């Protein structure tokens, strides 16, 4: 997951949003949808939401909370939390600008 969710194509951004919501604790799908809408202003359709959940679940980033209650709630796994941390760290890490990189490169 070093590239984050880039390999998820159109699901990459919603996946990031869902992971951020689940970082606050387990949520049922409807709550995830509402919270993503409230936080990001993004209207996550049901087809997209469950497409994201299926992808995250398959990658072991989220899991169903063991319970007989319906609807089922989802939470981040340890791997999911690590992935989120790694993505946040990558976003906040200072990067060398192309201009400064060019001045340090030997002229050819």
């Amino acid at each position, binding site marked *: 997951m070093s590239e984050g969710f880039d390999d998820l194509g159109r699901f990459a951004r919603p996946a990031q949003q869902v992971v951020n919501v689940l970082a606050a604790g387990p949520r049922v799908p409807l709550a995830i949808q509402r919270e993503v809408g409230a936080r990001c202003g993004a209207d996550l*359709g049901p*087809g997209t939401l469950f497409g994201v959940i299926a992808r995250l*679940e398959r990658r072991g980033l989220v899991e169903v909370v063991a319970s007989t209650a319906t609807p089922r709630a989802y939470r981040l796994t340890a791997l999911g939390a690590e992935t989120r941390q790694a993505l946040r760290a990558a976003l906040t890490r200072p990067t060398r600008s192309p201009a400064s990189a060019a001045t340090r490169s030997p002229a050819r």
Partner: protein
Amino acid sequence: MSAILRLYPRAWRERYGDEMLAMLDARPASLSDRFDLVRGAFDARLHPQVRGAATPEKEIPVSQRLLGSMAALGGLVWILGFASLFVLPRDAYGDRDSTVAFIAVIFAGAGIGIALGELGTRGADASSRRVGHAIAAANIGAATTMLFGWPMFIIGLYAFPIIGILAAVRGVRNGVFPGWFVPAFVGLAIATMVGYMGSIHQDAAIVLMGGLGVAGLVLGARAIGGGPVAAAERSLA
């Protein structure tokens, strides 16, 4: 709404179907939600994420769904064609207008026949599949014959149920159609031919003749929904 969810692969529906329905019960789907669900269904089929959904095409192949749709559409057209005899205004002599029924029988008979022949030999050996192709071709021939008018029309009209019975028997022998399909189809085919003969009350004859359309609808629905035809396909996989 559950109709849209049926677009998703079976394994997907088993895993997420209840949750999706619960969510849609809590928040009724808007038009964009419906579009999103349809888009999600295509995605779920193109990029299966749920174990067991990786082989949806083997469960219900596209060709089977197309043939099932052809049979179901043919059955519907056949029924509507005969129903038109009751609906359309009679001519000056009090005779029924049979133009729509005439055209419906030609196209619907060919459609049901092709589907019956091809579906009845799916998953069978090569020689049996050749018989299925021959049955489909014979139905196209019967439909073409009917275009030449009287008396060729009558030959084609009787050919449909007779070829259909052969296809139904072949399908049951191959284990593709359920056992009850032969007696049901034979009953409907005989009823249709009795209707053709005009030896009973005209209204009853029309209803009987519409019976074969029901067979087409049932066959089509089973093929689309993954009935025994699908089981035969799975055994090949």
